[in-house]
C-alpha cells in the first residue's frame, strides 16, 4: 500500500499514520477528536473522512530538500482522495513557502494551508474535522460560502437591463416589455411595430442598438 487508497473513517474520527504516535500534533488531537493509529497509510498522515486526508509537511521536510515534493506528486497521481496539505511555515522554512504554494495549489490543484507549528496544525485539523461533522449532520445550507440555489424573480432585472438601451427610461421600458414580453422578442421587432409603442425617434434608437 504505497499511496494511501481509500480508508473507512468512522464518523467523527481521525485515522492517523502510525509514525505520528506520540508527536505533539497527536497529543493535542487526543481528547478533542477520536484518534486511531494505523499502519500502512502510505503517503497520507491523517484521514479526516472517507474522502479527505491530510499530508503534513514539517519544517524539517522543507529544509531537507525535494523529497516532500516527490511525495506530493506521487499522492496526486495515485489517489482520488481530496488532499489537504498542511505545511509548517516558520522563520526558517518561510523562504520555501512560495515555491511550495506554486507547486501544490497552482500545479497540483490541491489545498495548501500554512501553520506556524504543530500546535496550530492540531487546532486546524480539529476545525476541519468539526466542520466536516457539522456539515454532515446539518443540511448543506450550513456552509456560508456554498451558493444557495434559490429561484429569484427576473422581472426587476429584465426591467433594469432594458433601461440600458439608449433613450429608454423606466416608463418606456415597462411599455416595451408589456408589449413584447422578452428581450429576445424586443430584438426581433420591426421599427414599425416599435413605433406603435414608443414613437419614431426612440424606435429608431432601439432598432439601431
Amino acid at each position, binding site marked *: 500500500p504505497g499511496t494511501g487508497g481509500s480508508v473507512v473513517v468512522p464518523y467523527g474520527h481521525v485515522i492517523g499514520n502510525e509514525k505520528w504516535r506520540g508527536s505533539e500534533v497527536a497529543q493535542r488531537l487526543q481528547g478533542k477528536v477520536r484518534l486511531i493509529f494505523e499502519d500502512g497509510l502510505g503517503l497520507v498522515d491523517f484521514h479526516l473522512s472517507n474522502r479527505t486526508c491530510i499530508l503534513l509537511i514539517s519544517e524539517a521536510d522543507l529544509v531537507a530538500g525535494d523529497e516532500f515534493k516527490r511525495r506530493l506528486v506521487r499522492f496526486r497521481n495515485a489517489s482520488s482522495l481530496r488532499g*489537504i496539505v498542511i505545511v509548517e511555515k516558520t522563520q526558517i522554512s518561510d523562504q520555501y*513557502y*512560495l515555491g511550495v*504554494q*506554486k507547486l501544490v*495549489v*497552482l500545479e497540483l490543484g490541491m*489545498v*495548501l*494551508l*500554512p*501553520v*506556524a507549528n504543530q500546535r*496550530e496544525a492540531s*487546532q*486546524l485539523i*480539529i*476545525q*476541519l474535522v468539526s*466542520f*466536516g461533522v457539522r*456539515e454532515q449532520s446539518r443540511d448543506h445550507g450550513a*456552509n*456560508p*460560502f*456554498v*451558493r*444557495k440555489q434559490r429561484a*429569484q*424573480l*427576473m*422581472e*426587476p*432585472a*429584465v*426591467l*433594469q*437591463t432594458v*433601461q*440600458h*438601451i*439608449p433613450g429608454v427610461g*423606466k*416608463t418606456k421600458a*415597462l411599455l416595451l*416589455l*408589456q408589449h413584447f*414580453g*422578452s*428581450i*429576445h422578442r*424586443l*430584438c*426581433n421587432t420591426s421599427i414599425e411595430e416599435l413605433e406603435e409603442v414608443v414613437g419614431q425617434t426612440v424606435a429608431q434608437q432601439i432598432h439601431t*442598438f
Partner: protein
Amino acid sequence: LARVSRGPAEQGPSLCVLADSREICSGPEVISCLRAEHGLRVQVCPLGTSDYVVSNRLAVDRLLQSELQSPGNRNKLSQRLQRLQGSFERIFVIVEADRVRPGETSRFFQRTQHYDGVLSALIQAGIRILFSSCQEETAALLKDLALVEHRKDAAIQVPTEPEGHRRDILNFYLSIPNLSYGAALNLCHSLGSVAAVANSSVPALAAGARLGRPQAEELHRFLRHDFDLQLLPGPLPAKGK
C-alpha cells in the same frame, strides 16, 4: 529590459488582468507591480463583484488576514463570495498578511478558532486559497494565475476598453445578473449585435461569451424571459408622468 525578454512578454502580449477600481486605493502596489514588474496589461474597471479577474472564468478576491480573523466580517464575506460563484467557474481568495506600519513592533498574528473555521468552510465550498505576505507577493500570485489560465486557453483576449456605441452595449450586458465583466466584454466582441446575442442558442452563447454551460443557460433564460408586470415588486411609477 531583462524583464521584458524573460517575463510574460514571451507568452505574447495578451496577458491581461482586470482590476476593480477600488483596488487603486486598497492595493496600489499590487497594480503597479503587475504592470511594472510583470509586464501585464491591467485594466482598471468597475468590476463590483471581485477584486481581480484574471481569465474568462477565474475571479480573485484579495482579503487581509485580519478580515478573516474577525467574526463580524463573516456575513459580508459570504454574500460576496456567493455572488462571485454565480458568475465565475473558479474562485481564488488571496489571504494577504496585514501591513506592519513603520515603528510598530510586528504584532504577532494570533490564530483564532474562527479563522480556522473560515478556512475550513472556504475549502469545503471549493474556493481556492493562496497566502501572501505583502502586496508584491499578491501581484506575483496574480501573474502566476493569469499564466496558468493562459496555458489553459482561458485568458482574456478581447480589447478591454470599448468606446462609443460599444460602451453602451457593454453597459447593457453588464446589467444582466450574474454575467461577469469578462463575459460581457466577450459578448461585445464576439457576437456582433445585441440582436445576434438575443437570438443565439445556449452553445453559441457559451462559445461567444466564453461561459460555462450553466451560466450560458442562465443568460439564455434571461434573454427569453417573458416579462410579467404582476410579478414586479414595489409600486409602479405613476402613469403619464
